[in-house]
């Protein structure tokens, strides 16, 4: 009864979502957004008509103007700088627009273009100094702040009267200043357009990534060939242009040049930027953060002005909110990953019946023996982590290594070794196709194809994203093993969508169906997910009927069959369950049966823990990782089973010296080759009564050897 309740609770309550939502990057903005909502709510309660359309339109107008400058500031802060001169650029470009319009009587489009050019020029001065001459951003923009401001002061001494005297009445100019479309102010429309572009630019386009990369680590960006100087310079130019856009709208709205225009603007914008969560020092930030920051600052200042607060109280409130928000935000940013690591592991209920006996004297097919005691060792100490082994038609032996290489051992004695291909990620399962191309599942990268001459090509690294997942599961995190059907479909397993290659054992702690089987069509190049919700799907082997695949669910301790063609297409059937260990790769045997590796044996303690999700969750939260209860992967065995799911034979290394740990095995010309993901060797075992001419993929593809 209690078990049923637990199982129901863990089947239907999505524990894993909390961790996944928190690890989304947009939750970094959570604190500023919450602050914005609180401020907005408080002000709408204390001020009448705060949320009325006219008041909102007014706020939007100001928000748009400050918002443009905020975008520019965000850009330079993300690239690792700061622009203190925005206030002065704002004043100068404002003057420029009004001077051209009122004194020189230029047409409006020309004024707009000239003003933007003026902003770009002023920004370019900063850009050249900081980007190319590599001056310090803070001191440089501080100096240009003073220079631009005094230039502005000198200019308005001469021209303020003639500007103030003119009252231009040009419809397009008035539209810029006060027009709206369906009640939405013109400035807000332009802002939204630029903000959307900015978002796409920063998140989807190469230059945007360059900017973030430079801010994140200027040195690494430089070393990886990003044009650091030019990119930085252009960021300041963009900041100048964005500021001049703001100045244009401001000029059209108010039409005056007062001496104090833009004084202290840099402080407001900087405040907004930092408050929005864009870290000073660079590398982090987004358009949304900039907008949120601007809105918070604007709402607070406007709200307090409307409330008729004295100047001092206004300042204190702004400063107080800023400080509290900054403190909370910094704590949040600092501890976010720690919180995520505490809540990310979300175990579920997983009940298995008692396992079949393996002890000596108990009988049964799993009875331990010492057959693997004297396996021949290949490449001892020269290879690391050969998860899978495979042999080609010329009897050469291939194995993956932890360093991201495919190693080749040459027949007949397998003493000579070379790097066959370098891929960069850890190779897991392997299979040959008809043309002797080697398909390899690479943990963390996807499915790759290695031609016989050693050239590496990517086959696929993504599949369709599922509708309801929070984690982006379109990328392949842990492609594990594969086999190729006669029609050229490659079925491969992705062990888990929640963990990376280096933390795969944690998935066993969760025991949730996080894995899936994916199908890649070599003819069309299309990839789709064939089956999901599997408990660490691992080995895959095309069955003898040519219409189904056998696959192992490691933490489900079962072998299942999936029909991909024929009358039962799409159906799944259990071949074997309640195995005494965790099944790994499956491969063809010369007598038409199948080899299966058990990577480790079940233990009563983990079996019990799998029925106690709460216990495992507390363990993940309170105990350091190296003391967690993990599935045993130190000792396993190789078994042979037939199509009906009957175990025929098992092979053990009781002494535990030569080959206790096995993740894959491959039969080839009367020998069984053994690989293990924790091993520094490949095992070779002489099979009795085996076909001395058996070559797995020659048999599959009907070739003569």
């Amino acid at each position, binding site marked *: 009864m209690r078990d049923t309740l637990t199982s129901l609770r863990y089947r239907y309550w999505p524990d894993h979502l909390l961790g996944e939502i928190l690890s989304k990057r947009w939750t970094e903005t959570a604190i500023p957004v919450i602050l914005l909502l609180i401020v907005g709510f408080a002000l709408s309660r204390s001020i009448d008509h705060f949320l009325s359309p006219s008041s909102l339109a007014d706020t939007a107008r100001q928000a748009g103007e400050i918002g443009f400058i905020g975008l520019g500031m965000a850009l330079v802060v993300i690239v*690792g*700088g*700061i622009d203190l001169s925005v206030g002065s650029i704002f004043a100068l470009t404002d003057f420029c627009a009004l001077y051209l319009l009122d004194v020189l009587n230029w047409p409006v489009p020309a004024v707009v273009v000239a003003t933007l050019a003026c902003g770009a020029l002023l920004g370019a001065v900063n850009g050249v*100094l900081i980007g190319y*001459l*590599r*001056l*310090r*951003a*803070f*001191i*440089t923009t*501080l*100096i*240009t*702040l*003073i*220079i631009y*401001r*005094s*230039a502005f*002061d*000198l200019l308005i*001494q001469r021209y303020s009267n003639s500007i103030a005297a003119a009252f231009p009445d040009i419809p397009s100019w008035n539209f810029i200043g006060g027009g709206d479309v369906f009640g939405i102010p013109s400035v807000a429309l332009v802002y939204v357009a630029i903000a959307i572009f900015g978002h796409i630019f920063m998140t989807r386009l190469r230059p945007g990534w360059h900017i973030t990369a430079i801010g994140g*680590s*200027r*040195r690494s960006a*430089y070393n990886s060939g990003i044009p*650091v100087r030019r990119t930085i310079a252009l960021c300041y130019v963009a900041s100048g242009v964005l500021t001049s856009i703001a100045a244009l709208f401001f000029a059209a709205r108010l039409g005056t040049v007062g001496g104090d225009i833009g004084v*202290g603007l840099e*402080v407001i914008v*900087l*405040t907004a930027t*930092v408050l929005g969560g864009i870290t*000073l*020092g*660079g590398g982090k930030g987004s358009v949304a953060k900039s907008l949120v920051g601007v809105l918070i600052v604007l709402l607070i200042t406007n709200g307090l002005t409307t409330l008729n607060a*004295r*100047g*001092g*109280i*206004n*300042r*204190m*409130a*702004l*400063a*107080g909110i*800023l*400080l509290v928000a*900054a*403190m909370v935000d*910094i*704590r949040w940013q*600092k501890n976010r990953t720690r919180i995520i690591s505490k809540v990310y592991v979300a175990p579920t209920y997983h009940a298995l019946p008692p396992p079949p006996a393996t002890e000596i004297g108990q009988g049964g097919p799993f009875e331990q023996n010492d057959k693997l005691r004297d396996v021949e060792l290949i490449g001892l100490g020269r290879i690391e982590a050969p998860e899978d082994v495979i042999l080609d038609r010329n009897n050469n032996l291939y194995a993956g290594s932890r360093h991201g290489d495919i190693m080749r051992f040459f027949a007949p004695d397998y003493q000579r070794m070379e790097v066959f291909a370098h891929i960069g990620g850890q190779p897991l399962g392997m299979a040959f196709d008809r043309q002797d191309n080697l398909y390899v599942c690479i943990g963390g990268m996807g499915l790759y194809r290695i031609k016989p001459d050693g050239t590496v090509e990517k086959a696929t690294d993504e599949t369709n994203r599922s509708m309801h997942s929070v984690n982006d599961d379109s990328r392949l995190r842990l492609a594990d093993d594969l086999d190729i059907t006669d029609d050229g479909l490659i079925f491969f397993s992705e062990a888990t969508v929640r963990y990376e290659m280096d933390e795969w054992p944690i998935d066993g702690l969760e025991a949730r169906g996080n894995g899936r089987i994916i199908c890649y069509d070599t003819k069309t190049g299309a990839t789709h997910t064939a089956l999901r919700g599997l408990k660490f799907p691992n080995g895959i082997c095309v069955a003898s009927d040519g219409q189904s695949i056998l696959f192992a669910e490691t933490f489900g301790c079962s072998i299942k069959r999936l029909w991909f063609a024929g009358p039962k297409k799409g159906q799944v059937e259990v071949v074997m369950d309640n195995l005494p260990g965790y099944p790994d790769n499956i491969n063809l045997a010369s007598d038409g049966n199948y080899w299966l590796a058990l990577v480790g044996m079940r233990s009563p303690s983990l079996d019990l823990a799998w029925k106690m999700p709460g216990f495992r969750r507390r363990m993940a939260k309170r105990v350091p990782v190296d003391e967690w209860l993990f599935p045993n992967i130190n000792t396993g065995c190789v078994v042979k089973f037939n199509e009906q799911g009957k175990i025929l034979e098992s092979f053990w290394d009781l002494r535990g010296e030569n080959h206790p740990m096995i993740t894959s095995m491959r039969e080839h010309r009367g020998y069984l080759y053994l690989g293990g993901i924790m091993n520094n060797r490949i095992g070779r075992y002489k099979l009795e009564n085996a076909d001395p001419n058996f070559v797995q993929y020659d048999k599959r593809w009907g070739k003569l050897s």
Partner: protein
Amino acid sequence: MKRLRFNQQEIVFAVFAVLFLAFSIFLRGFLTPENMLTLLQNVAVLGILGLAMAIVVIGRGIDISLIAALAVPPGLVLQMVQNGHSLPASLLTAVLLTIAFGLVNGWLIAYAEVPSLFATLATGLLLAGLGQAALFQLDVVQWSDGMKGFERLGQGTILGIPTSIVMFAIACVVVAFLLRQTRWGAYIYAIGDNPYAARVTGIPSRPIIVLQYVVAALIGCFAGLVMAASVNSMPTRVFNSTLIYDVILVVVLGGIGLSGGRGGVLNVIIGTLLIGTMLNGMTIMDISYAGQNLVKGVVLLLAVITDSFLNPRNEETAQQGDI
């Protein structure tokens, strides 16, 4: 072989020397004892503030709230005396307020880990707002009879030298002693040079950072008292001015890098002299305030550019987050 390479300090000193020479030759009335004293007197407050900023910048921080510390606690002294409190009690209150303010700054930066630029920006606003809203009746706090005698802090002469210069000199000596002769000073340099290494070595980084901001606020308050004494009032609107930028310029031009761990009192003196000479010369030439700022900015820019050519930074060694 010694390479012919100048650091920023020497360049700025050279610029100062050239300017000084040029003014002395071409500008009538520049190289007179009276004008020299005026020059120094005008920049004394700036120099004292520069010392406060220097301590913080050497420890790899920045203190934007110095002007608030300059304006509010001394303003409070004047206001309290005006309201009938005794001068010592008022001074004590102001000092306590300053220390509390410095503690808040330091706590925010050292313990709450708010970036110093942002933290001091906000606390400065907070203190200025507090003064405006709760402490002062007028923007300019006037001198009152109870302050009698206190104006000697900023006016008159000691041994023929204007008092404000003497005050600057005293401040220089005190700060130089703190930085060069005490263990705390060495810690400040260590933290500024490499905060992580300093922490690993066992230096109490956080208390030392708090100390920096407390000392800076106290020096700022001292500068405010000198300033109030010399003009017989406390114009609290000084908070709205761009004085803080001048202070930063003094420090950075003098050769105290914003990345911390470098420089000392000498750099502040050089920076102050350069700014002072330029302003004084231009005042004699009767250039408008805006024009003076323009010239000041351009000269500063040239100095910084020259420095970047003589001592180029490269991407390999530039520190991350070093803006």
